[in-house]
């Protein structure tokens, strides 16, 4: 069974020094890059939904097929049907943005609820939640998704529900361990002695004051997972179908031309996936190191 290590904050963490002054430069760099990517994704999503695109992503131009990047008018070139690459990349964000948020929400919500119950109640609750978590962990995610696809239909929201559900174990274990760690602190005991309602203790003193950083970090990592799953499934042909754009099916359709030495149509969306996922991962890691504290020397 999985265990997650948890480090306490160093005593030297003086509250008056701002966080970014105590943090490693490397971590700040990670977070800066990650925030840049998040802004880019959100901005592009909004631009895509408002139809603020350089070209219509479905506009076929047979005179200008597979133009290299930097062609006048098409900054990132065109794909195998002469459709503008940049516009398709922007529209491709629609394929995962809202479904990804749903997956993140499910993982955080159910993970938190289960984690709080397991950590605070303990005993039989903890045991049964541990069994549930191990049960979910027993399925390879993609196989479970294929099972759901075979049983129902290839609907991205069903798929993202499964993705969210398979992320519940990580969140709930982290929350549980955090609560077990906090329960030994005096302030919880003081809360109980003062007669503060349980709801306030859990929602405000535990979750809001001590777990929000952890939840934000898990949200970024969960979004990266969701993007990876969406693009993989679109690549496998179970997600967004041509002519609608998704980064995954753009790689897939572009790869047909790879053997002719035309790299760009599949490389552009692949790089988009790479830099986006890298951004979310680095954001999560950087925040983790800055906010959750990191042991010296590691």
């Amino acid at each position: 069974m999985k265990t997650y290590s948890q480090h306490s904050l160093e005593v030297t963490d003086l509250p008056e020094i701002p966080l970014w002054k105590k943090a490693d430069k490397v971590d700040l760099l990670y977070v800066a890059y990650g925030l840049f990517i998040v802004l880019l994704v959100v901005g592009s999503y909004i631009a895509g939904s408002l139809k603020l695109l350089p070209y219509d992503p479905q506009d076929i131009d047979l005179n200008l097929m597979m133009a290299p990047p930097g062609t006048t008018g098409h900054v990132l070139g065109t794909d195998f049907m002469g459709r503008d690459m940049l516009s398709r990349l922007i529209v491709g964000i629609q394929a995962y943005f809202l479904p990804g948020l749903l997956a993140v929400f499910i993982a955080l919500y159910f993970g938190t609820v289960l984690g709080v119950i397991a950590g605070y109640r303990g005993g039989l609750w903890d045991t049964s939640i541990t069994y549930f978590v191990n049960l979910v962990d027993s399925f390879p995610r993609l196989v479970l998704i294929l099972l759901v696809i075979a049983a129902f239909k290839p609907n991205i929201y069903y798929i993202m529900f499964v993705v969210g559900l398979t992320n519940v174990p990580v969140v709930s274990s982290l929350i549980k361990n955090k609560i077990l760690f906090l329960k030994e602190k005096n302030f919880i005991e003081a809360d109980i002695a003062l007669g503060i309602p349980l709801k306030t203790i859990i929602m405000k003193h535990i979750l809001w004051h001590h777990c929000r950083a952890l939840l934000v970090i898990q949200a970024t990592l969960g979004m990266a997972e969701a993007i990876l799953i969406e693009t993989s499934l679109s690549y496998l042909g179970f997600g967004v179908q041509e002519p609608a754009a998704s980064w995954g099916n753009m790689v897939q359709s572009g790869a047909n031309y790879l053997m002719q030495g035309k790299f760009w149509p599949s490389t552009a969306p692949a790089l988009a996936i790479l830099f986006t996922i890298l951004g979310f991962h680095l954001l999560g890691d950087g925040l983790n190191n800055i906010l959750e504290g990191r042991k010296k020397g590691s």
Partner: protein
Amino acid sequence: MKFSAIRPIARVLSRELMITAFLLFGVSLVVFIILYLAPGDPFSLLIEGQLLSPEARAGVREALGVPQSWYAQYWAWFWGMLHGNFGTSIRTGLPVLSEVLRVGLNTLILTIGSMLVTLIIAVPIALYSSVRGINKISWPLTMGAYIISAIPVFWLGYIVIYFFMHTLGLFPLAFGYSGGGQKYRWLYPLLPIIVLGVGNGTISEVIRSLRTEMGRVLSEDYIRTARAKGAPIWKHSFKEGFLLPVSGIISAKIPFFLGGAVIVEQIFNWPGMGRMAWQAAQDRDYPIIMGIAILAAVFVRMGSLFQRLLYVAVNPRASKE
């Protein structure tokens, strides 16, 4: 191993086997419930195109011996599975178990091979940076590992195919193809293994976990004592700082390797369980994908069981938890 170490292992083995059996029972229940909730039923495929009245449908069900209640259906299926009868594929009509086992070995080779590739890349970087901290060599290496972990595996596969088959002309394009490049044919199975090992996104996690754990162990008092005595540090830190984190992360990542195998097998035409699952999802071939899900879960559970035993062998106190 000393004899005294056997007893805690036996105790944990018996307990973990029970937990594993219980979890696999749960897995089968989840698989069944998903398919039970699915709209329509597998019969629609069997009697496709035949306009049957509801009574005739019920007749067909009865003729095929389908129990009416859900728990009777589940029990019939579960009982069959215990006896090695996973049903028959809707598409090919062959028994599921033999079909899946036939390709299961290929997937096993692919996943275990790619785990080794992941470890070969990740372990030196992690150990180096845990000993030396972040410096001019370890930072670019770690950063490179992050970037590699973010590469979508399906694109990496194409690039590797292009490079090796097209540019270098080393390999034939598919299994069983008898064209040129016969000389390097034995190398062909290595490509998907390397692609899955590099591209499944676990390298950075292995590095992170191993570096943190090794760094923690190296700052323990007993390592300082060993260092002062001039005893070999590696020997003292091996079990706790290397064996446990590596086995822990690998067993936790088996599902990811199996999931990545679905994609890599697709790209490389590797006749494995992942490709079969993909095909089955396309055809809505329920029995096949149920069998694959259950065998994959068995694989995952076995990995976890093995990791647990290793943990107790290293740290016998844990058997009393």
